[in-house]
């Protein structure tokens, strides 16, 4: 009985660690996304609460950049344009007329 519990604990720890590593590899972190987007749009900035400011860029430039990064356009929510990355399961919302991208992990 004790041995089974020990196996269970070790298994859980290994899985937890594996998941941590895999989530880093998938590039789902905020910094990863920001850096990737910065390669395409140089003058973007980080704002609080996982928000990226894309001020100075036209909406179609931002949309094109997101598409190149593998995000596909989904149904919008109000004025928020929804972009979804299948590989990382990350949703990004581009707020129309406000030049802001919100990250939703």
């Amino acid at each position, binding site marked *: 009985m004790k041995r089974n519990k020990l196996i269970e604990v070790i298994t859980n720890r290994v*899985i937890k660690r594996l998941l941590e590593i895999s989530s880093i590899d998938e590039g789902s972190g905020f910094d990863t996304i920001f850096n990737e987007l910065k390669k395409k749009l140089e003058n973007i900035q980080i704002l609080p609460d996982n928000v990226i400011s894309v001020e100075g860029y036209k909406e179609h430039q931002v*949309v094109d950049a997101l*598409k190149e990064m593998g995000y596909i356009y989904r149904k*919008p929510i109000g004025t928020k344009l929804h972009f979804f990355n299948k590989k990382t399961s990350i949703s990004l919302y581009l707020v129309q007329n406000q030049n802001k991208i919100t990250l939703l992990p």
Partner: protein
Amino acid sequence: MKKQRSNKKQLKEAISAGALSPLGYSVLVDASNVLEKKRGLIRSMFPSTNTANIKKWFLKISLNDKYGESKEKLMALGSRFSDMAALKVLYKSLNALKSTPLPEAEKEQREKDIQKMIDKIALFIRKRLTDDDAELIEKFANVINNVANSIAAEIDSELKASVQSPEEEKPKEEPKKEPTKPIEAPKVEGKVNERLKNKIQPTNENFPGPGEIVDAKDLDYDMLDYFNRMNIKLSIDTKTKKGIRGSVGKMYNDLVFNGDTINKKDILQVKILESNVNERLKNKLRKKIKEIIRTHIIKLK
């Protein structure tokens, strides 16, 4: 405040109440791509038509007085829809419907199929438009409908060209009797529609994935069918209770939530939980790791 609300209502009506003809939505989202980037998605609808001719249809939009001031908004809208795989598939299906040869007797049915497909495309686009886009519809409705009429006329003429006269049909049947291809040859006309319908079977590409929230208004048949097909686990928020674990299944040919114990009308939103596929993979991984650890413990002993 009231004025603002009525403005918003007007905009929403512009999207949904048919200010544009169904084909107009395709024109709206592709206008800037055709005019500025010279690579519109609409080309998949007319692969045999010259690019310059397609551009000619759209020129009416660029000649409009309001085009200059709205150019950027049109470009932003165009970039969202450019290279959209699902839309491309719909356009290709429409092309196949209008250009696949058919006997005279099936022309009426084919026209209905084409109309259905155009409506489907319009609905697909409409669901992805925002209030900002509705302003564009208001500005350009007339000219866009004009372009849509030209496209409709082209579809009509291509369909007419595809209709075979009875004399044309006969010689085509003869080579089918050749012994070299006994199985592929009998392509019955009736199967064309079936094949095309199969082509537009819903893909999962544009459906939400794990972690995403779907509003009650988006819980249409296609969405429920997707939940059912993929056996997706859901967290359902109703008017009275939040976070009910559940799924969609078939009951008496209807798609229902949790064996029809939750009424669709009561649902506010559903959240897609981690997919079963991941769960299965995790379980497999868990089993494997357990085995490895077990053998190591035995060795240590």
